[in-house]
């Protein structure tokens, strides 16, 4: 390999890339704009549900008598009880969020100390209606509890007798860590591996397509192969360009995530404090995945006959890289066994999660790095094989 040729190819590809608006949009602009926008919209959705719960919810009551519970509900500030003929239609059309159906003889049953039935009807399609049904249920449970307290008091029984044990559930926050930071880290352990891996693919993909099948389609590969540069040098220059694009994709996605923390802090709290060691390890792990992904994308792109074909081969990689993310999304990194770290890509996700939680396990780090390095070498050799194969280069 001639490093001067590698540099010439790399330099040219960078110049070409710098002038390619499509790549800038896909690798830089979209992550920076889309990620904050996505979290902002999620925040709006969550805010809306909170608003539904906080505001007086429009409901209808169906009751043949003016029972105490009905009076209680009418007076409750959490409800706006509306009178209407066709309550079902009003529910489906979103005029009311729930129908509270009070059974016959409810008041009589309560007085006789027999359970009275209340049914809460809600629209399953509407998230507002679902949230409102929960609110109605909680308020009716409060009423039920107040009736129970009155009964116990009337019998001269201390209500505390029904609750012999009081349980307090509290997350342990290690010394020096703040509560918000731990919460942020938990959120980040879901989001960060997903974003890091996804953007190694989406950041490098347009470049990989252009540098492999693009050369074939514009017929520039043959002149390039007839120069003094050997194939390995040309391949290395292209590979480094894709790797750089993938790294830029990852960096811009992280930048987007940081902006998301600012504009939608309630959804993506980012009050985190990572040490240099943690950041360094995450960078190394992500870089190794980017190296594997870049070589795989370059191989597939060289194999393809055209841009279109390369797009068909490369697009599924976004889904493929997400699969390990879903597999370990709810995996407990404190109890997971070491064997999991032998699985390529999946090990990188687990390691990033571990590192985020401050778990620095040298064995897991070693296994992950070793497996990834082996895969990097294998994928680069695969790309070299593909680029040297006549039947692939001149495949038509």
């Amino acid at each position, binding site marked *: 390999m001639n490093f001067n040729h590698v540099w010439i*190819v790399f330099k*040219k590809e960078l110049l070409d890339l710098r*002038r390619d608006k499509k790549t800038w949009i896909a690798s830089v602009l979209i992550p920076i704009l889309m990620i904050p926008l996505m979290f902002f919209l999620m925040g709006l959705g969550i805010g809306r549900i909170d608003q539904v719960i906080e505001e007086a919810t429009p409901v209808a009551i169906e009751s043949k008598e003016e029972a105490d519970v009905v009076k209680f509900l009418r007076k409750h500030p959490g409800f706006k009880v509306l009178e209407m003929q066709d309550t079902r239609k009003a529910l489906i059309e979103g005029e009311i969020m729930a129908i509270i159906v009070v059974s016959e003889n409810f008041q009589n049953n309560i007085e006789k100390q027999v359970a009275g039935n209340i049914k809460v009807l809600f629209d399953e399609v509407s998230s507002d209606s679902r949230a409102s049904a929960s609110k109605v249920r909680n308020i009716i449970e409060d009423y039920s509890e107040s009736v129970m307290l009155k009964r116990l008091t009337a019998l001269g029984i201390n209500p505390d007798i029904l609750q012999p044990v009081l349980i307090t559930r509290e997350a342990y926050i290690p010394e020096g860590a703040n509560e918000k930071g731990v919460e942020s880290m938990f959120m980040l352990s879901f989001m960060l591996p997903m974003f890091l891996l996804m953007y190694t693919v989406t950041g490098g993909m347009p470049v990989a397509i252009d540098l492999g099948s693009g050369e074939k389609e514009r017929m520039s590969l043959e002149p390039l192969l007839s120069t003094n540069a050997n194939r390995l040098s040309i391949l290395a220059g292209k590979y480094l360009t894709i790797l750089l694009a993938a790294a830029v994709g990852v960096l811009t996605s992280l930048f987007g995530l940081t902006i998301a923390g600012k504009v939608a802090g309630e959804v993506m709290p980012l009050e985190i404090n990572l040490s240099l060691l943690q950041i360094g390890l995450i960078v190394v792990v992500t870089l190794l995945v980017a190296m594997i992904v870049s070589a795989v994308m370059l191989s597939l792109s060289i194999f393809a006959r055209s841009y279109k074909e390369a797009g068909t081969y490369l697009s599924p990689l976004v889904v493929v890289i997400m699969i390990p993310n879903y597999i370990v999304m709810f995996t407990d990194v404190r109890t997971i066994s070491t064997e999991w770290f032998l699985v390529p890509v999946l090990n990188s996700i687990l390691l990033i999660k571990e590192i985020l939680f401050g778990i620095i396990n040298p064995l897991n780090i070693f296994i992950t790095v070793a497996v990834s390095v082996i895969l990097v070498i294998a994928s680069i050799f695969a790309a070299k094989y593909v680029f040297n194969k006549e039947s692939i280069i*001149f495949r038509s």
Partner: protein
Amino acid sequence: MIEVNGITKNFKEIKAVDKISFKVSNGEIVGLLGENGAGKTTTLRILATMLKPTVGSAVVNGKDVVKSPQNVRKEIGVLFGGESGIYDRLTARENIRYFAELNDMPKEKINPRIDYLSKIFNMGEYIDRKAGKFSKGMKQKVALARSIVHDPGVMLFDEPTSGLDVTAAREVHGFIKICKEEGKTIIFSSHSMQEVEKLCERVVIIHKGKIVEDAKLTELRDKYDKSLEDIFVGLVGDRNEL
């Protein structure tokens, strides 16, 4: 000097070239004639070290295309016809410079050489403009300049005037004549009999992977007493009927 010795190239069950042999002396321009799919491009690709022959060998200026491909590539300039393979987002100068650098030209010689080629091919107006909006003729001239920027001794041109207008084609012809005067060895593949008659001293006619004629133009005219086109159609047509 180019020597092709009994080269065969198989693509699975297809025999693209079949035991072909010919020589091109230093300073000679040889026309490689043949129909589409006759094996011209495969022959040129083997000489350009992009394909390895299944059987046989080829030597360019004393260097074997299989044993020392990189040394062969130092000796040659290659231009494949059809699409010119120019990078649209680079200027004409940047396109040419890229190839000059990959062919290890000394830095101080690159710009004067590009300026010289720009003058030869009348590219002065657009040499520093991005190639994306160039006409086919403009692109082909850039591709031609790119292929010979390092001043190789051997040039392999596969239909270099394909798709060019008359003026652009004449400029290419003019350049090939200059190369001839400079003593370059050239293989010139073309469909155009007129072009070959105008530029070449000798022709190699290839049909279905085999050489069916290899002679000087004057010898062919004496032998057949016909125009080159009639000779070509006669040779190829006769064999198509077989």
